[in-house]
């Protein structure tokens, strides 16, 4: 596995290394067969918050701008034009204007214009007549006051204050442009886009089929005749299907490290990479009621964590330890190692940390004879349950006897919202590797996804300060400081940032797995098959 890891690291440095290695004229045709891990709730990317929707439907759409599909690390420098030919910030950094491509047609033949852009973002901001059934990323546009059009081929975003990160949000796979003339309900079942592939059918629990868009505005693309996703929720069956050659590719970023070994042992030719998915596993601590309203106990908890053990057990060493922001080398905003290790609980000497934690516990009145009994609540899904099992084992060392409390998916968020838990094990995914997205969503006062209701007005100010900062180096410094503070406050202790594997058959060319997001790299317009 080490070699796969090393390979991934190499790919990271050489960036589009894969293409140089397998250079050659792309062959046309063929249907890319991919298995899908579960049946997405709908086909509407805007109404979803899982890459179960992004992956199969991103090829149907285009964004205004998009992260370069062949540069693994997303950053502002890798943003490329798509439906917009160019973009420009106003001098006060409060207006972002896009010049739109002309002659683009929706899959139903209607022309694409600036009205579609306005419709899409008005709906996202909740301003239009038509409403999404759910709108999970509304907060991305909190700083946008209005979207205006100038003729059919120009659209501008007016901002309340400078927010350089906006362009990154617009470049995410989560931000396709929807047609104005199709209702949100229709988009959930029969999506219409401008993208390289047209939607053919979506049979729930069975398959999703896309076919080549012959009128795609990028001439000569796509190479494939179509993409077929077969929905296989059972991982054993899915992997066996891939190994036996029934699929050209696994569901991206869905192969666990142990499973990767199985794949490698049965299909040695398969190309596999393991990359960070920018999903952090963290502990939500209910600080509004005893015993974790006591900062000492919260600190003890943070000190008791042996993050390396988590990574060792769950990822055979292949996951990253960091703060809120995705650690390097995948992440752009992670604090330096020395800084990280200065945070309580991140220091390398676990025993010393735990000794300190026990002292804190004793201070709070607990000890070997008076142990603290708590429940660790989490969802009944292995990726949630497994780290919880380790957590329970680790906090035994600081006089805490925890019991696992598994919660049905349908009852999880209502339960969390009711504050009906003491410790919870949670996963937080970040679509874009940008502090704005993760700080505001998870730590700002009153945000829906700030489960712990952490609210610190000073930090809140720092959030705004970094968000408005246009100098990247300065912004980084600010971000590090915030991140460190968040960890020290035990706002939501981050345990690790997961990595996942993706595999494809050697003849599949043109796939790049992103290293700092698992939501943005699935346009697949120039994927081809060498067979």
């Amino acid at each position, binding site marked *: 596995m080490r070699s796969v890891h090393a390979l991934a690291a190499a790919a990271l440095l050489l960036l589009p290394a894969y293409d140089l290695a397998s250079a050659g004229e792309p062959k046309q045709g063929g249907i890319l067969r991919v298995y899908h891990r579960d049946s997405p709730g709908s086909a509407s990317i805007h109404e979803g918050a899982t890459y179960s929707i992004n992956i199969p439907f991103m090829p149907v759409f285009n964004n205004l701008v998009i992260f370069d599909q062949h540069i693994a690390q997303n950053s502002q420098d890798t943003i490329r034009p798509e439906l917009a030919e160019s973009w420009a910030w106003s001098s006060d950094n409060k207006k972002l204007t896009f010049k739109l491509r002309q002659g683009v047609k929706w899959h139903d033949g209607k022309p694409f214009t600036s009205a579609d852009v306005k419709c899409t973002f008005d709906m996202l901001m909740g301003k239009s007549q038509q409403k999404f059934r759910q709108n999970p990323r509304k907060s991305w546009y909190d700083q946008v006051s209005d979207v205006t059009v100038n003729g059919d081929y120009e659209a501008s975003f007016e901002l309340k204050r400078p927010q350089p990160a906006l362009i990154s949000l617009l470049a995410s796979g989560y931000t396709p442009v929807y047609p104005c003339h199709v209702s949100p309900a229709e988009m959930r079942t029969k999506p219409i886009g401008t993208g390289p592939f047209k939607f053919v059918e979506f049979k729930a629990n069975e398959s999703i089929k896309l076919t080549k868009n012959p009128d795609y505005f990028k001439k000569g693309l796509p190479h494939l005749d179509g993409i077929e996703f077969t929905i296989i929720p*059972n*991982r*054993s069956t899915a*992997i066996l299907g891939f190994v036996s050659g029934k699929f050209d590719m696994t569901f991206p970023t869905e192969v*666990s490290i*142990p*499973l990767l*070994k*199985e794949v490698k*042992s*049965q299909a040695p030719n398969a190309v596999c990479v393991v990359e960070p998915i920018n999903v952090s596993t963290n502990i939500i601590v209910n600080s509004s009621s005893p015993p974790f309203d006591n900062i000492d106990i919260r600190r003890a908890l943070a000190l008791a964590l*042996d993050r*390396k*053990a988590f990574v*060792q*057990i*769950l990822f055979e060493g292949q996951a990253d330890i960091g703060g809120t922001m995705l650690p390097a080398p995948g992440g752009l905003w992670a604090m330096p190692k020395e800084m990280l290790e200065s945070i309580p609980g991140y220091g390398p000497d676990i025993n010393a940390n735990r000794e300190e934690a026990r002292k804190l516990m004793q201070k709070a009145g607990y000890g070997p004879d008076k142990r603290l009994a708590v429940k660790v609540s989490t969802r*009944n*899904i*292995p990726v949630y*349950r*497994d780290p*919880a*099992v*380790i957590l*329970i*084992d*680790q906090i035994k060392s600081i006089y805490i006897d925890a*019991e*696992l409390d*598994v*919660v*049905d998916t349908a*009852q999880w968020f209502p339960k969390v919202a009711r504050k009906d838990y003491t410790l919870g094990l949670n996963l937080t995914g970040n679509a874009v590797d940008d502090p704005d997205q993760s700080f505001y969503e998870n730590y700002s006062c009153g945000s829906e996804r700030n489960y712990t209701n952490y609210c610190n007005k000073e930090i809140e100010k720092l959030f705004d300060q970094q968000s408005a900062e246009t100098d990247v180096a300065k912004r980084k410094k600010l971000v590090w400081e915030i991140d460190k503070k968040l960890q020290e406050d035990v706002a939501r202790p981050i345990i690790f940032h997961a990595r996942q594997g993706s595999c494809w058959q050697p003849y599949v060319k043109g796939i790049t797995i992103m290293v700092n997001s698992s939501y943005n790299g699935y346009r697949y317009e120039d994927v081809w098959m060498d067979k």
Partner: protein
Amino acid sequence: MTTINFDSELRRAGAHSTRGWRRLTFLAQRYLLGTVGLVIMVLFVWMAISADLIARYDPLSVDSAQRLAAPSAAHWMGTDSFGRDVWSRIVHGARISLAVGIGATALGSTLGVIVGLVSGYLSGWVDLLFQRITDILQALPLLVLALVMTAALGPSLPNVIIAIAIPLIPTVARVIRANTLALRELPFVEAAKSIGMSETRIALRHVLPNTLAPLIVLATAQLGSTILTEASLSFLGLGIPEPYPSWGRMLSESAAEYVRTAPWLVIFPGVAISLAVFGTNLFGDALRDILDPRQRG
């Protein structure tokens, strides 16, 4: 005419072994499969009872240094990806399986007996109502009902036991009802009535004990199937949740990821489930032969 060895024929028929140890060894030979089943069952029950003694490690204790260790003197059945000792988990898993098996069977049988007894004894509209209840429960396949029940009740050990127990009711109720109906007409029940014994007392003192044999046969047969149902629920993600080391989950969760790299994670839970179920089935078969003379071959 061929000569006949009377002694060996008689031994085969089980003569000279009317009591004590010889009787037992004879039964063991006569019902060889049943004895094997009994031995397996006793072994598992012993495992469950003395789990704390024979488990060599804490079944929940995680050890990142010892993960995926192959079977060895230190870890007889190796360790899992958390570094937990598989032997200890199997042993404690016996407890869980037994809890599910016996818990669900006992609960299902008790409810079934109540429904069957009341239905068969009281007749009239109560019977009609209870029969409709059994009809309703019987019209849904066991796994479908258990699935809907666990989905509705949420994952936990007692809930899984309840979800598996409810679908067992109709079979038991039917057998008990039929038996009760037959027994009601028998002279000793008539006699009990004539000396003024109360209906409830008759039902409990006379009718119930006489339906015990078929009940035991039925319950043994169901014991194995409850263990399998739990395994199926685990596979569908609705079984007994962590931290309980359930065999079904141990098997279904390692089936994909460790078949080649750590086969002991797949083999031992698989063997444990199959063997336990096999044992109860063998024993149940023999028990049916012994207790239900109609079926005796």
